[in-house]
């Protein structure tokens, strides 16, 4: 419904650039309504062609809704120029250089063009983050309308949040679980004695460590443990052993906290 409203709004621009002859599957969403509008404006008996166009629109709508959610976002049109994009994460229109409103169905992996896997190749995030900010950052859109500046603020914040979430292993793991609808209950008290004893001893060791050499030693040990449990998480997640995956996340949380303490002390 929202999309059709946008389409109606951009009718005037579409009318000047009508391409009705061979609508491609992606632009089908944009053009049929233009056909309807132009028909109603130019022809005096619009009923028959209107009905056909509506049926075509409905059909195309149904065809799209049966596809996966990834495809759904590929049929989005620019609010400004009506250019339709195939991209999964349509944040910025390259055609008219306008920033798009935030689409909640776009997830963080899509923003960076990454597969929804837990393992990430290092280094690629930073570059892509900077590229996005060059296009989306609010400081660069002073000449644009208030509406677009608001979009810029929202999109830029989302991209920053996405980068932050995906960079750290723990937050990435939690995000993956969330995407799969497995919310981790953070309120429940942990009572696993072995885990807690280990963490207690670790924190005591950190508190008692006197020099930075000792702290660095502990830190590398903890980093190693983090990596180990991170791999374990990936394994459990892939095999759909979600309870085990949650346990891995718990451990990782504790190790991360320990790392923070070490950094504070150093």
């Amino acid at each position, binding site marked *: 419904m929202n999309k059709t409203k946008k389409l109606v709004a951009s009718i005037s621009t579409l009318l000047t650039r009508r391409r009705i002859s061979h609508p491609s599957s992606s632009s089908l969403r944009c053009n049929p309504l233009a056909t309807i509008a132009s028909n109603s404006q130019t022809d005096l008996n619009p009923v028959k062609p209107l009905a056909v166009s509506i049926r075509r629109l409905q059909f195309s709508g149904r065809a799209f809704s049966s596809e996966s959610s990834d495809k759904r976002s590929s049929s989005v049109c620019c609010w400004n120029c009506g250019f339709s994009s195939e991209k999964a994460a349509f944040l910025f229109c390259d055609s008219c250089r306008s920033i798009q409103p935030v689409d909640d169905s776009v997830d963080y992996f899509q923003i960076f063009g990454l597969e929804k896997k837990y393992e990430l190749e290092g280094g690629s995030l930073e570059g892509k983050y900077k590229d996005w900010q060059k296009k989306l950052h609010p400081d660069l859109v002073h000449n644009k309308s208030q509406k677009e500046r608001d979009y810029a603020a929202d999109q830029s914040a989302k991209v920053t949040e996405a980068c932050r979430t995906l960079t750290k292993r723990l937050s990435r793991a939690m995000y993956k679980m969330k995407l799969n609808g497995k919310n981790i209950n953070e309120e429940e008290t*942990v*009572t696993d*004695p072995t885990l*807690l004893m280990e*963490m*207690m001893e670790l*924190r005591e060791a950190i*508190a008692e460590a006197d020099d930075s050499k000792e702290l660095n030693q502990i830190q590398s040990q903890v980093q190693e443990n983090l990596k180990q449990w991170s791999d374990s998480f990936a394994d459990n997640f892939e095999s759909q052993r979600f309870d085990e995956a949650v346990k891995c996340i718990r451990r990782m949380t504790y190790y991360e*906290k320990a790392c923070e303490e070490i950094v504070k002390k150093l």
Partner: protein
Amino acid sequence: MMIRQAAKKALGITSRQSTPCSVGIFRSYHENVIDHYDNPRNVGSFDKNDPTVGTGLVGAPACGDVMKLQIKVDEKTGQIIDARFKTFGCGSAIASSSVATEWVKGKAMEEVLTIKNTEIAKHLSLPPVKLHCSMLAEDAIKAAVKDYKEKRVKTNGA
């Protein structure tokens, strides 16, 4: 001075610089919390193999805090005669466990099981974001009592 240093170390605090900073712009820690932080009561450990000792070890998954609360029970009367705690976490968590050790002393085990996290939170004027710390303290008390009871069953059974 040395005792305070030792206490601070036990609490996982090393220097004055790690004094808790404000939770929000206008909110700071309540004076009760600061009091427990500066003058920690009952920091330390009992021997957990001691049959009169019950040990409660709990953790908060969200923030990675660990809390250990130990009670020493008079076997004849079932009253808690002493308590110790060791907490690694934020100021609110430390204060909550400190308050818990104060409140359990001199009470019967069944009575301490009725201590509610809301009472601890109210005493420390904990903001909503720190309510889970008081919950952790309540869980620690329950865990300590449970541990003691289980030990008793084992020794009596054996």
